[in-house]
């Protein structure tokens, strides 16, 4: 299962609910405003440490760069491009976009 979240963790509960219901070993891709959750300033309030302990966490690099966050990602998060996004979707038999 690949979980995909695209909203800021400060604005909606999508990421919190995703982390509550994701199972260890599954994958999480943060896109658009959700990438703030993977930054040094946002990771703590987003509960990202817990996510990194049980999930493989990816961020969409173009969204990170667009927001000026490229130098601020926390360790343990893997940045991917659009091609990597496609690879993640094809590598997982199911995915869930949290709205």
């Amino acid at each position, binding site marked *: *299962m690949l979980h995909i979240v695209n909203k800021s963790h400060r604005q909606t509960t999508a990421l919190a609910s995703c982390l509550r219901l994701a199972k260890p070993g599954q994958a999480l891709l943060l896109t658009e405003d959700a990438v703030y959750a993977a930054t040094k300033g946002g990771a703590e309030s987003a509960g990202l440490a817990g996510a990194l302990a049980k999930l493989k966490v990816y961020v969409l690099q173009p969204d990170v760069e667009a927001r000026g966050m490229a130098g601020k990602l926390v360790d343990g998060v893997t940045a991917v491009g659009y091609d990597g996004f496609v690879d993640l979707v094809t590598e997982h038999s199911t995915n869930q976009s949290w*709205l």
Partner: protein
Amino acid sequence: MKKFMFVNRKAPYGTIYALESLEVVLITATFDQDVSLAFIDDGVYELAKTQDTKGIGIKNHSKTYRALDGYDVEKLYVERESLEARGLTEADLLVDVEVLSTAQMADLMAEQDVVLSF
């Protein structure tokens, strides 16, 4: 036959998500698929009894949940944590559901072929 889960996380009338989810559920059921509905976060409000929308000019679609068994959609799951966080109990809901722990809901989600979020 594939296992489809519809994950409902929005309250009923503030956005169109709840109604759209119901529409897609009915379509999917028509194609003889294994359909489950999960109610999480504000999605549990969709199942509250005594909804009356006369005053807001929007169709009361909550009655449709009671018609789902006519389409062989009988797997309705509610996350206990979401229910309790909103001061609700199973007795406040308008249909029979199975109340699951967070871990049970996570297991159920993980075994689906397709998960659609609303």
